[in-house]
C-alpha cells in the first residue's frame, strides 16, 4: 500500500520564497500520501488562492485550485458527488478564516469527510503581506503600513464551535508530527481541521522558525487524550480541547485536540435519505440510455403521476 513519497511530486517548479513554511507542508503531504498509499486518480487536493493555493500543482494527484475563500465549497461538491474520493483542502488563513469563514463554519455543521489543512502564516502572503485574521492586534508584517487593529481569531476554537469532528494543530517544519497528524486527519471520517503553523519567510519577521521551535509543545505527548469516548462526553471534551489548544506567548500547543467518531458524516446522512447514494453517487449516476433520457414518456407519466390528470 505504501508508495514512494517522491512519486507524488510533480515536475512543476515550486515558486515559494526560500525558507517558506510551505516547503515543509508539501513535503509532509508527500510522505503522508505515500504512507497512506493514496491513489492519485482517487485523491483530490482543492485549494484556495494564496501562496498556499499553489500547492496542488506540486502534488501528483488531482488538483483543483479554486477561488479565494471557496475551496471548501468546491470540495463539498466534489466529495458529495463522489464520496469515494479522498478530498483534502489546502487554504491560507486569509482564505479560510476571512473571506471563506462562512464555508469554514458550514463544513463543521455538515461533518463531510474532508480534511482542511490551514496554512497559518498570519499574513496574506501572495498579496504581499497584509494582516491575515490570525495576526495579533498590534502586530505588523513587512507588508503593512501600520500595526494591525483587528484581533486574531483562533481557527481551533471556531472549528470546535462549528462541529468539526477532528481538530488539530501542527507545525510546518516539524515534518514527522505534521505527517502523522495529516495521516490521522485524512483517515478520520468526518470534517477535519489541521491548522499548520507556517512561517512566512518574507513578510513575517516575528513568527519565524526560531520562534516556533522554542514554543511548540506536543500536548498528546504531555498526556492529552483527544478522543471523544462517548457522545455524552462531546461537549465537555470540546471545552477542554479549547483550553488545551490555547496558545500563549510562550507555549503553543500542537497535536490532535479533538476527535469524535460518533457524529454521522454528511455522506451517512445523505445515504439515509437516498437509498442508491452509496452504490451510485451523483458522479456515477447513469444519465442516458443510448443518448435518450432514462425517463421516457412512459416513465415520466409514472414518476410525475401526482402532476398528471386524466381528463374525463
Amino acid at each position, binding site marked *: 500500500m505504501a508508495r514512494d513519497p517522491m512519486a507524488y511530486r510533480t515536475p512543476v517548479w515550486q515558486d515559494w520564497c526560500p525558507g517558506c513554511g510551505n516547503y515543509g507542508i508539501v513535503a509532509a503531504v508527500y510522505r503522508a500520501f505515500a504512507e497512506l498509499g493514496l491513489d492519485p486518480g482517487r485523491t483530490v487536493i482543492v485549494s484556495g488562492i494564496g501562496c498556499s493555493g499553489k500547492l496542488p500543482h506540486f502534488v501528483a494527484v488531482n488538483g483543483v485550485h*479554486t*477561488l479565494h475563500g*471557496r475551496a471548501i465549497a468546491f470540495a*463539498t*461538491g466534489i466529495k458529495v*458527488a463522489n464520496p469515494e474520493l479522498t478530498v483534502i483542502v489546502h487554504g491560507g488563513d486569509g482564505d479560510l478564516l476571512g473571506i471563506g469563514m462562512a464555508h469554514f463554519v458550514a463544513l463543521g455543521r455538515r461533518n463531510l469527510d474532508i480534511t482542511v489543512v490551514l496554512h497559518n502564516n498570519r499574513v496574506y502572503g501572495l498579496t504581499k503581506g497584509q494582516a491575515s485574521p490570525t495576526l495579533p492586534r498590534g502586530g505588523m508584517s513587512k507588508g503593512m503600513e501600520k500595526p494591525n487593529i483587528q484581533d486574531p481569531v483562533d481557527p481551533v476554537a471556531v472549528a470546535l464551535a462549528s462541529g468539526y469532528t477532528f481538530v488539530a494543530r501542527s507545525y510546518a517544519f516539524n515534518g514527522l508530527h505534521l505527517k502523522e497528524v495529516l495521516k490521522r486527519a485524512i483517515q478520520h471520517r468526518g470534517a477535519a481541521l489541521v491548522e499548520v503553523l507556517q512561517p512566512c519567510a518574507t513578510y513575517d519577521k516575528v513568527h519565524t522558525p526560531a520562534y516556533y521551535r522554542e514554543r511548540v509543545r506536543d500536548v498528546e505527548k504531555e498526556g492529552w487524550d483527544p478522543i471523544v469516548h462517548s457522545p455524552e462526553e462531546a461537549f465537555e471534551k470540546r471545552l477542554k480541547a479549547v483550553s488545551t489548544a490555547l496558545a500563549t506567548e510562550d507555549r503553543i500547543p500542537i497535536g490532535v485536540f479533538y476527535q469524535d467518531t460518533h457524529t454521522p458524516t454528511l455522506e451517512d446522512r445523505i445515504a439515509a435519505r437516498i437509498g442508491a447514494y452509496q452504490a451510485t453517487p*451523483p458522479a456515477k449516476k447513469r444519465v442516458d440510455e443510448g*443518448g435518450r433520457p*432514462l425517463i421516457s414518456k412512459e416513465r415520466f407519466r409514472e414518476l410525475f403521476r401526482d402532476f398528471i390528470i*386524466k381528463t374525463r
Partner: protein
Amino acid sequence: MELRLVLGGPQGAGLETSMTVLARALARLGYGVLADREYFSNIKGRHSYVHMTVSWERIPRSLDYPVHALLAMDAETVLTHFEDIADDAVLLYDAGAEGVTLTQIPSMEDCLKRRLRERLRELGVGEAVGDVVRYLRGRGVRAAGIDYREVLAGVAREHGLLPSQASRYLSAILVAGFVAAYGISEEAVEEAFRERFRGREELVKHNMAVVRAAAPKIREAVGVRELPEPRLGLEEVVVASGNDAVAMGKLVAGLSYQAYYPITPAADESLLLERYEDSAVDGEWVGAVVLQTEDEISAISSVIGAALTGARAATATSGPGFSLMVEALSWAGHNEVPVVITYYQRGGPSTGLPTRGSQSDLMFAVHAGHGEFPRIVISSGDHEEALEDAVWAFNLAERYQLPVIHLLDKFLANSLKTFPIPDTGALSIDRGEVVEGGEGYKRFDLSHTISPRAFIGGGAVMWYTGDEHDEAGHICEDPVNRVRMYDKRMAKLGLIEEGVPTNRKLTYYGDPSPDVLLVGWGSVKGPALDVVEELMAGGFSAAYLHLRMLHPLPAEAVRQYVSEAGVVVAVEHSYEVQVADLIALRAGVRIVNRVAKYTGRPIYRGELLRAVLRFVKGYTGKEVLTYGA
C-alpha cells in the same frame, strides 16, 4: 373561447389551495388553464391574488382583463379589483364585510388607498365594500354576497369543529363560487381536494362541506352559466408550475446534484427536486442529491465541484443570488466546466420586488463575470419549452464545456398551467466528448478546440486553476500559451453558432414578411402570440420572433427577420427592453419601437395589442404598459 377570473385574499389564507383545486378540477374536465399568482414579499396578511384563464378551445397562453369573475375572500380584494371586472361579471364577496371601508384595511398600501379614495370620489361611490358592490351591481355585475362567517360556522357546527379550525376552510368558499357560477361538477372538485390533501381525508371532507354549504347560496344569487364543453381533445395533461416543469426537465436530463440557497422565485424548484431525491424508475435511481448551502457562492462552487466529477450539476436562483455567483461563473468559464444555472428573474434592482416578475437581467446574464469567456444563455417562453430547455441546457453545457444560464422569470416560475405530457423519450442526451483519460491525460489539450473531458475520480489525474493554464491545467503566464488558450476558449462561440441549428435558437411565428413583427423572449411569448393571432384575424400581416438562445445570439437570422419586416416592435418586461439593445450589439440593427413593462406584473394581451396598434399607426418610440394591481 375563454373565461377569465381573479381569486383574491390575504396571503397565507389558502388561495394557493383554491387555485390548485380549481385548476386540477378544470383540467380533469378537459379545460385548458393558465393561472398567475401575484403576492407580496410577505408570509401572511398582505393582498394576494390569482389571475386565471380557463379555455375550452386550447391551452391558454396569456392573461387578460377584464375578468368574468372576481371571487373575493376579503374586503381588500373587492376594493383592489373592482375595476378589473367586466360589466356582467360574477362577484363573490363576504356579506359580513360590507361595512368595511378603505380606512379599515391596514394591509393595503397607502398609495393604493389614496388612489382608490380619489377614484371612488370621482365615481361618486362610497368607501365601503357595500358601496362598491352597489356600484358594480349598477353596472350589471352579478354579485353574490355571502356571509362567510355564517357558512363556516354552519360547517363547524355540523362537523364539530372549533371556529378557529373552520376558518382554515375559508378558501373553499372561493371554490364554491366558481363551482356554483359555472356549474362545475362537485365530484371533479372533490377529487382535486383529495389529491391536494393526499391521505388527510378529513380536510377533504371539511373543504367539501364548505363548498356544498356555500354553492347553493351563490347559485341562487348569480345564477348558473355553464361553461361550454371543452374541445381540446387531450386525454391527459400535466398541471404544473414553471418551477415544477424545470425540476421535471432537470430530472429527465439526468441531474444528479443540485445545490441551492433559498430565494424567491427559485426555491420551489429545489424543493420539488428534494421531494424526488430518492426516486427510481425500474429500480434505477433517477433523483438528485439536493443540498441547501450556506449561500449562493457555496451553491455554485459546489456545483462546479460536482460537475468536475462527472455529475450533471445545477443550481437555481434569482438576481441577488446570481450576483453572488458571478465570480465562480468566471472560474467555470475559464476552466470549461459544464454547469447549469437556472436563473429566475424577478423585479430588481437589488431586493426590488422580490415576488414579482421581470426580464431585466438579460444584459447582466450575458455580460456577468470579469474577463472574457464563453457562456450560453438560453430562455424559455412557456412551461413546455422550460421543461425541454432544462434538458437542452445540460446538453449544451457538456457538448461545449461551459456554463449555461437558463434565464427564466417569476411569471413562468409561479404560474400554473395545463400542458400535454412531454415526449421525453424523443429528447436527446448529449454528454459531449468524454474520455477515461489515463496516463499523460491533458485536460486542456490544445489539439482540440473542445478538449475531451475526463472526470475527476475516473482514474486520470488532472489539474484545474483559475489562473491561465497550460494544457495540463497548471498555472502558465507565458504570452504565447495565453493567446492559444484564450483563442481556444473563445472559439467555442463560433462552434455554437455553426453547430446548433438556428431553428433551435429561435422560433418564428406568423407571416414571412410581415407588416408588424414583434420580437421577444421568455414570458413575452404567450401574449405576443395571442396578439399576433388577433392582428392576423383583424387582417394585418403579423409575426412574432421568439428568441430562445440569447447568447451567442443567432445574429444573422435575427438581422434578416428584422430587416424583412415592416414595423418592428421589441417587447420585454423591463425598462430598457434590453433584447433590442442586445440585437443592436450583435446584429447591428437598432429596434426603436419598444414595449416595456416594469411594474412587476405580467404583460396582458389587451394592453399589448393596444400598444402594437399604436405602432402600426405610425407611432415610434417606447410604450410603457402598466395595467394590473
